[in-house]
Every structure is written in structure tokens, then in C-alpha cells.
């Protein structure tokens, strides 16, 4: 039986091209500078009230924090305001920051919580508290569809809209892990979820976004 399965598996692999391609590579652009001893010193000095040290932390992290926040609020001015507010809050409470955490995960947590608070005050795009993540049965395999590659701009828009349509508790894991390139451990730390819960939400969010492309592809074909 196993031999039969292995043979089937092998032929399917050949038939489908990259069916069992190796794991996808890690994102080349890492979202936040890796904590190093220099950063540790900057944090220590900031905790002691050294504003110049904190300003250096701002220079290191502002752009990436802004990019993360922008995925939540979809408005550049509001994202900038939240980014500024996040650093001001971080500066005011850095005495309480515990060095066993990583600075950027703490910073992202403050920023994302603020973005969530504001998002919740707005009328919801979707009132759904769950997500539709089951694949469409009649959708074809579009993974190599040349027309999708040609319509890269449209696909990008579909993806961005699908991400923004996710309930916020699913959006955060997807943005942190797949768009910003954090590890599962880092993402779980930012969202204060267990790794298992983080991975579970991430998987459902990915399937929901994938399904949105199914729908887009079917529409553009029809």
C-alpha cells in the first residue's frame, strides 16, 4: 500500500511540477533589525532616561512599525499618527519594559493594539466574526496561471483587500508572519498568543486569503 502511495506520490509530483517543492524561503527583507548588543545598550540607556538613545531606537524601527500599522488602518496619515503615538507611549513607559522581551515585539504590540482600538471604533467593513476559508470546489489550480502573473497589479489589490477583510484577530498573525516576515515565535509574542493559537489563526487567515484569489480567478475567467 505504501509503495503504491509512494509511486502515486512520485508521479503526481512529476505531473504537477513543483508539487512537493521545498519549503518556501524565508522572507528576504526581515521586518525589524535583529536585536544586537548595541540595541540592548540603547534600550538600557533609554530606560535610564537617555532620550538620544531612544531616538536612535526610533530611527531603527520607525519605518517597519509604520509598514505594519499601515496594513491595519489603510490610511497613510492615520498610520503615521499611530506610529508617532506608539513611540510616545513607549518612551513614557519604557521604565516598565522588561529586558527579557525583545524591544521590537513590545513596540509592535503597542502599535497594533492602538491600530486595533482605532479600527474597532470605525464601522466594520465586515460584521463577520468568523472567516470563510474553505476552498471553492470548482476553482482551478491557478498557481501557475500566466494571466495572474500578467495582472500582478490586480492580484496585489485582491490580496490587500482580502487581508483587510479579515477579522482583526486573524489579520494580525497573517500580517506579522507573511507580510512582515516575523517568525512564528516572534508573532506569537507580539500578539500574546500561544504558538499553537497563533499558528491556527494564521492557517485560517491564509486559507481565507487564498480563497479570495480563487474567487477573483473564477470571476476574471468568466
Amino acid at each position, binding site marked *: 500500500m*505504501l509503495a503504491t*502511495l*509512494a509511486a*502515486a*506520490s*512520485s508521479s*503526481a*509530483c512529476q505531473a*504537477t511540477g*513543483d*508539487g*512537493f*517543492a*521545498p*519549503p*518556501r524561503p524565508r*522572507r528576504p527583507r526581515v521586518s525589524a533589525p535583529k536585536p544586537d548588543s548595541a540595541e540592548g545598550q540603547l534600550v538600557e540607556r533609554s530606560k535610564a532616561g537617555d*532620550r538620544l538613545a*531612544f*531616538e536612535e531606537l*526610533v*530611527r531603527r524601527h*520607525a*519605518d517597519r512599525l*509604520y*509598514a505594519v500599522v*499601515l496594513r491595519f488602518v489603510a490610511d*497613510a496619515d492615520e*498610520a*503615521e499618527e499611530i*506610529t*508617532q503615538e506608539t*513611540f*510616545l507611549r513607549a518612551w513614557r513607559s519604557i521604565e516598565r519594559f522588561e529586558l527579557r522581551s525583545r524591544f521590537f515585539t513590545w513596540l509592535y504590540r503597542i502599535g497594533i493594539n492602538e491600530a486595533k482600538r482605532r479600527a474597532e471604533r470605525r464601522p466594520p467593513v465586515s460584521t463577520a466574526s468568523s472567516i470563510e476559508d474553505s*476552498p471553492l470546489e470548482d*476553482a*482551478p*489550480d*491557478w*498557481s*501557475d496561471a500566466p494571466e495572474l502573473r500578467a495582472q500582478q497589479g490586480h*492580484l*496585489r489589490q485582491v*490580496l*490587500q483587500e482580502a*487581508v483587510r477583510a479579515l477579522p482583526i484577530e486573524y489579520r494580525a498573525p*497573517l500580517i506579522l508572519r*507573511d*507580510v512582515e*516576515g516575523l517568525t*512564528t515565535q516572534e508573532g506569537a509574542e507580539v500578539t500574546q498568543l500561544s504558538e499553537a493559537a497563533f*499558528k491556527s489563526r*494564521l*492557517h485560517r487567515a*491564509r*486559507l481565507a*486569503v*487564498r480563497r479570495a*484569489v*480563487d474567487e477573483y480567478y473564477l470571476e476574471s475567467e468568466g
Partner: protein
Amino acid sequence: MIRRFLERRRYMREHRWTHAHLSDYLDDELAPRERERVEEHVGICPHCRRVLRTLRRTLESLMELPVEPRPGLADGVIRRLGGKP
């Protein structure tokens, strides 16, 4: 008859398990035996194969979403830290 029933039941068990672990597979967060388990099922299940391939493509596209820079952002934060408008 019983044998077919048992094979079908096993297939559906593997189908559910594989579908729940496709992300872990793509993130390389499965043990070697679990990776083989996914690959065995994907090899015989067109549905899971399609979902795996399109999910991989989705993740590749998500990684390529552009980042729009905001010039002067850090300077603006630093000005506010100093109490300047």
C-alpha cells in the same frame, strides 16, 4: 467491501489532517515523518494538491506586497519626543 470502507475512512482522516497542516508544511514546521504524511496524501489527492500549490503562490504574493515609505517619519517622531509640534 469492508476493506474499501476502511481505506476510505483512512483517506478522509488523512485528508483532514493534511488540510490542517498545509501551512506547517510550507513553513517547514513539521517533523520529517509528518512531512512525508502530507506528501503521501497530496500525491493522491488533487484537491489538497491544488490547495497546497495555490496556498504557496498566495504566500509568495503576500511577501511581495509593496511597502510604501513615509519620508521624514522618524524625524517627525523625534520632534514630538522633544515636545515640538
